[in-house]
């Protein structure tokens, strides 16, 4: 009897290669640290900030300026409040590129932070950079006597003394705060209509009002907004 070696059909050869592709693709996603879920981006934020495991308490939607598809979120644990951003792209999955945090472990009545995002955008004709700024204000209220939180941007004289004008202010009453895990949080943002110039001596202030109607100025304790990449 002759020994005829049967060769694989084209279909079988193609299917064999396709089957081999599957574990290869999984391996690639593993070595590329592919972000399959939004939680992957949150874990990266926790890792980079060193704040421990957190949970998202509010999705803040897509960033209105800069990169399209970049979504902001507020996450928290007992000791930290994190404002982060994440974005999905096909090549890397869910990834983060920046975040800021507030240390809430110091027993302050309000632990709040600000986060300024400057974005350079080309105009419709691709000419001239147009700088836009978005400032976030976020915090945790631990004093049950606090009824309202007010954030404002005040323009000062260059020597930093006299107030020229109040650029923007927002008061958030208890009813507008977020409640998660038995704690109260607030978050709001302000976007410039035109270029925001630091030379204008704009100062951000935070005030709280208690049940007796007394206002108290508070410090922002938040850490600087960090870009990771």
């Amino acid at each position: 009897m002759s020994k005829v070696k049967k060769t694989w059909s084209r279909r079988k050869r193609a299917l064999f290669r396709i089957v081999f592709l599957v574990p290869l693709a999984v391996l690639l996603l593993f070595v590329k640290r592919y972000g399959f879920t939004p939680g992957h981006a949150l874990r990266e934020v926790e890792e980079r900030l060193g704040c421990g495991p957190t949970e998202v308490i509010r999705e803040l939607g897509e960033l209105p300026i800069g990169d399209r598809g970049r979504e902001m979120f507020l996450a928290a644990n007992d000791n930290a409040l994190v404002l982060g951003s994440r974005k999905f792209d096909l090549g890397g999955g869910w990834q983060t590129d920046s975040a800021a945090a507030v240390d809430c472990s110091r027993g302050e009545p309000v632990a709040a932070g600000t986060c300024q995002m400057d974005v350079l955008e080309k105009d419709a004709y691709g000419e001239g950079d147009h700088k836009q700024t978005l400032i976030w204000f976020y915090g945790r209220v631990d004093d049950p006597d606090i009824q309202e939180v007010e954030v404002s941007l005040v323009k000062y004289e260059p020597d930093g003394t006299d107030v020229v004008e109040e650029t923007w202010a927002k008061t958030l009453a208890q009813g507008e705060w977020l409640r998660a895990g038995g704690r109260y949080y607030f978050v709001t943002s302000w976007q410039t209509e035109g270029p925001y110039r630091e030379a204008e001596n704009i100062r951000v202030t935070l005030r709280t009002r208690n049940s007796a109607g007394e206002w108290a100025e508070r410090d922002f304790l938040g850490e600087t907004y960090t870009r990771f990449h």
Partner: protein
Amino acid sequence: MTAMTRGEFWTRVDKHLRRATDKERYAIRAELEGHIEDHALALEESGYPAGEAVERAVAAMGEPEEIGRALNAQFSVFWRVMIWAASILIVVLLWEVLTSAYTMNWTVYKKNRQARTDPYNMYSAEQAGEKYTLSQGLEIRETIGNDELYVYWVGIDPKANEAMVAMCMYDQDPFGWVSRNALFRVWLENQAGETGLGGGGGSDAAIANRRIKVPVEPGDTHVTLRYDRFGEELTIEVPLPWEVSQ
């Protein structure tokens, strides 16, 4: 009519195998010849002379054109394209796996390992200033979150009465990212409670390095590193090497 030889039979089949590659043609020829050979052997065993057995076996194969057309129909263009596409994808993915493994994992691992074992050669504290003539290597490691703080060097500038402490931070997971934010929230105090000044540093995804200097007085026995963030507190007393030979 003269009988067909094996060679003639193959030539007529082959004419119709337009979609087959050379390799596939070779395989078909081997298979067809195997069948002819088997049949001829069987005929020989039944008493036919060798030459006639082959002729009959070839004739029994049927119309070569018909066989050629039937075989050709089996070579689907679609699956050939799929083989090529899958092969190209395999090469691309393999390349991506190797480059990503190198850039995103091996580099992180290498730096993490160096931070654990030999941070001097990455960011030498001594390079920051040769004026720290009294110095000592240290082996102080503490955990912050899931990172390790490694305090590896202390030096004193006796002329300026200044001490410098060098430290680095790396993730406990050899492939993990470090929290540079945590390292840059560490501060240094002298025995009078004065806070130290920045002495330089740097960071990337795998390692963060920092040097802090603080004024000291002769007779001070130590300086203190402190960390208090996100509910985690750390105090490390770093002994001052006044007695160390230069």
